[in-house]
């Protein structure tokens, strides 16, 4: 939890002074009886791409879910664009311009590909148009009438990603989006993320695939046992290599 | 002498279910009216009334009545609608030698194979219902019958009685169909009735089954196509629910009608003041039988069950309910019955102006003769004959 000091050394002053998109302090989350997050603190500036790293079960996915108020119970403070949302229901949070892409993809079996794509309501102006999306993911266009879950894993992942791009969300919470994707698609996704970043979107990325995330991210948060144990700026990666290895290795 | 110096009457009826309107809470009012009219005391002993909902369940009825007679000192149980309730109750009354006056039930078996020396069946039963209506209809030329029967004991006994009457009077029964109890959609049965080619469609059922069947018959134009409809058991409340435009012209047999004479009308007016509705024959019967019972206690100067029952049997009934009514040895109260016809909308001058009494069925013809009875109380007499 030494993050605040580290922020001060962040070299990219432009980013540091940008308005804060998300600010979380002392976030605790519970599933029923089990206490999963033990006081998470993090903040993300507008236009930043930040990753959450950690082992399986460290609580990264839970952090994203907690932001969306999809956990059993949560306490602490979460501010999105300065607005306190700890008591808001999930749909209010989404309407603030947050797009969430879940780990398990969450493609609806009862809906066709096109219906899945059109499902999330537009929350902000400036989302991608349907044409743009189909242009970016031609597979989806081809299979737009088939049942959502009939897609291959990779296609499902594209769909899950695509459908929140349509909504115009300004803050994206992406959970393991490269999982199960062919290298070429992963590459494509990297391009997409860069593009989105250029458009000024703010992104929190939960990734196992560190090599995918490393070149894209501005900063990394390292999680363990439901807490942030380290914050690493992209320029410090080499310096903190050892730490990363011990924390992410077994 | 009056046991523990108090006469206790228990009123048992369906207060919340399908038969609620027939006797129900208003029956309790009728009973209370009788007690009040009698003066609230008999030979100096107070009269108290307790009541319970039998929920149409013989179980509930029998546990309630057991407790009444075995531990609460109830002397007489009145009301009783569902025949299963009545049979269960009278068995208990027989065991504990208390009196029951049945006003609501229809089954003629109550004074036949189920008769006891401990109850009286007061208002009507299936025998005159079948005879009165069926005889009249056959005589008017309705000689081929389709009988639609509710598939339970009451329906079966009504069906049997009707069939017999129709045959005896030279008619034929072309088809009999038994429908489950209860049924809400009768269209299929009405269609079968129409297809049967019978000239009379008889309904051997009761309550909402009858109402639904009549409604459906109207909808499918049964009467327009030349068939006539005979409802074997139809209460004032049923006709009221159907409305005269649907029910018009239906013939039925009743034990009493609120507008049959001045005396009846006067009592009905008092009843209506307290309840807001016109009384059914069951309500009137409860009032009448309770008064008769209290008078018998007064005369017998005892509330001993058998003494009172004998007194009741010995005394003819002449009141707003019946003229020259008599209680037989088997417990059957025999009195004049009436063949009525439901008025047309044009004839009907008010919400409750529903019947034209077209004929009186004299008491002696109305009920099953003792000679045909299987009642254990009178088998001896029959044998002597």
């Amino acid at each position, binding site marked *: 939890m030494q993050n605040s000091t580290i922020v001060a050394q962040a070299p990219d002053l432009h980013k540091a002074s940008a308005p804060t998109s998300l600010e979380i302090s002392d976030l605790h989350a519970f599933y029923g009886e089990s206490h999963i997050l033990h006081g998470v603190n993090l903040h993300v500036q507008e236009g930043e791409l930040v990753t959450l790293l950690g082992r399986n079960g460290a609580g990264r996915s839970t952090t994203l879910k907690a932001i969306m108020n999809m956990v059993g119970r949560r306490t602490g403070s979460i501010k999105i664009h300065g607005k306190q949302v700890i008591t808001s229901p999930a749909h209010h949070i989404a309407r603030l311009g947050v797009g969430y892409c879940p780990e398990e993809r969450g493609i609806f079996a009862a809906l066709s590909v096109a219906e899945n794509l059109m499902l999330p309501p537009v929350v902000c102006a400036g989302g991608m148009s349907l044409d743009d999306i189909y242009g970016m993911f031609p597979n989806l266009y081809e299979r737009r009438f088939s049942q959502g879950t009939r897609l291959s894993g990779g296609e499902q992942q594209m769909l899950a990603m695509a459908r929140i791009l349509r909504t115009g969300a300004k803050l994206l919470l992406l959970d393991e989006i490269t999982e199960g994707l062919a290298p070429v698609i992963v590459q494509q996704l990297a391009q997409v993320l860069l593009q989105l970043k250029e458009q000024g979107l703010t992104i929190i990325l939960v990734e196992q695939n560190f*090599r995918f995330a*490393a*070149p894209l991210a501005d900063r990394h948060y390292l999680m363990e046992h439901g807490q942030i144990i380290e914050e690493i700026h992209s320029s410090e990666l080499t310096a903190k290599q050892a730490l990363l290895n011990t924390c*992410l290795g077994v | 002498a009056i046991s523990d110096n108090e006469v206790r009457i228990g009123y048992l009826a369906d207060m919340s279910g399908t038969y609620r309107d027939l006797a129900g809470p208003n029956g309790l009012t009728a009973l209370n009216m009788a007690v009040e009219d009698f003066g609230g005391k008999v030979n100096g002993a107070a009269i108290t009334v307790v009541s319970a909902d039998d929920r149409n369940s013989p179980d509930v009825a029998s546990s309630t009545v057991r407790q009444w007679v075995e531990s609460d000192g109830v002397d007489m149980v009145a009301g009783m609608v569902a025949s299963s309730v009545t049979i269960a109750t009278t068995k208990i009354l027989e065991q504990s030698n208390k009196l029951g006056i049945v006003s609501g039930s229809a089954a003629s078996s109550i004074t036949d194979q189920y008769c006891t020396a401990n109850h009286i069946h007061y208002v009507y039963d299936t025998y005159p219902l079948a005879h009165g209506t069926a005889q009249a209809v056959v005589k008017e030329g309705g000689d081929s019958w389709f009988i639609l029967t509710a598939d339970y004991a009451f329906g079966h006994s009504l069906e049997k009685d009707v069939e017999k009457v129709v045959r005896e009077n030279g008619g034929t029964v072309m088809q009999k169909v038994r429908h489950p109890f209860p049924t809400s959609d009768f269209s299929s049965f009405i269609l079968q009735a129409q297809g049967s080619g019978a000239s009379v469609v008889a309904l051997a059922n009761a309550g909402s089954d009858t109402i639904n069947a009549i409604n459906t018959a109207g909808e499918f134009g049964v009467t327009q196509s030349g068939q006539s409809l005979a409802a074997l058991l139809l209460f004032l409340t049923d006709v009221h629910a159907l409305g005269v435009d649907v029910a018009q012209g239906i013939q039925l047999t009743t034990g009493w009608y609120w507008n049959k004479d001045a005396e009846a009308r006067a009592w009905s007016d008092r009843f209506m003041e307290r309840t807001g509705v016109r009384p059914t024959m069951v309500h009137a019967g409860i009032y009448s039988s309770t008064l008769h019972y209290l008078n018998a206690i007064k005369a017998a100067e005892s509330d001993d069950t058998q003494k009172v029952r004998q007194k009741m049997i010995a005394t003819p009934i002449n009141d707003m309910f019946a003229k020259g009514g008599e209680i037989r040895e088997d417990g059957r109260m025999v009195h004049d019955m009436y063949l009525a016809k439901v008025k047309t909308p044009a004839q009907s001058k008010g919400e409750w102006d529903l019947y034209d009494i077209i004929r009186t069925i004299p008491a002696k013809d109305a009920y099953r003769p003792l000679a045909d009875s299987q009642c254990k109380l009178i088998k001896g007499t029959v044998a002597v004959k």
Partner: protein
Amino acid sequence: MSSEFVLETRNLVKEFKGFTAVDKVNLQIKRGHIHALIGPNGAGKTTVFNLLTKFLTPTKGQILFNGRDITAMKPASIARLGIIRSFQISAVFPHMTVLENVRVALQRFEGNSFHFWSSDKTLNKLNQRCYQLLESVGLADWADTPTVALSYGRKRALELATTLAMEPELILFDEPTQGMGHEDVERVVELIRQTAVGRTVLMVEHNLSVVSQLCDRISVLTRGVVLTEGDYQTVAANPEVREAYMGSEVGSEVGSEVGSDAAEDKDSSAPTNTNQVHNTAAGPLEVH
């Protein structure tokens, strides 16, 4: 009963509504081996387990146990033959005490499980053995704790104790170290090593260090198909496996360390082995 293979499958197929989760899998598990089944998420590992224990019915194919065809048997009967499985999501009886959890397993051998007329005190004679088993997994102190109150790692240990109580000939572990902390993992590895003596073990495991430490033979499953088989060395050296599962040897700066090379530290005690790179479709991708 001394055939070489304890368990064999012949062209095992499982289809879910047109989707083939397991496709013509032929496995041969040697007696006395610790055999691992690895592969990316959704490869069909758990499904294979479910087929072997008949929690799912195979669409096609045969399962042989000690040479005997058990394809048509019921799950409980299979367990009675001595094939006991653990579950991916820990399988304990949450509202029974830790001791009772083990005891209910031991109880099966008593033959009194249908005795509804006798007291459960008759079971107390099993307690001794239960304590022993609990001792062996380090749970003796928790014997009277209701199982819900145990931490995740301890639940797994308990599950192991229960499984051991069955004296199985073949144990199937589905990700026994999943969700465990560092120390726990080591303990469980030790435990499995102990229990495997004189038994055969088939396990699904994502933790390659565990696999490399324990396993005699490995089958790699991808998209329902066995990609390759062999000992850790062989498998790890297979480029296809690397691409589909383990990750490529050399990546970008940091990545190379993190996704580090299991193949190089295959020596079984290397604790710093590898991240659980269970999906490295990223493969040869060079983003920069």
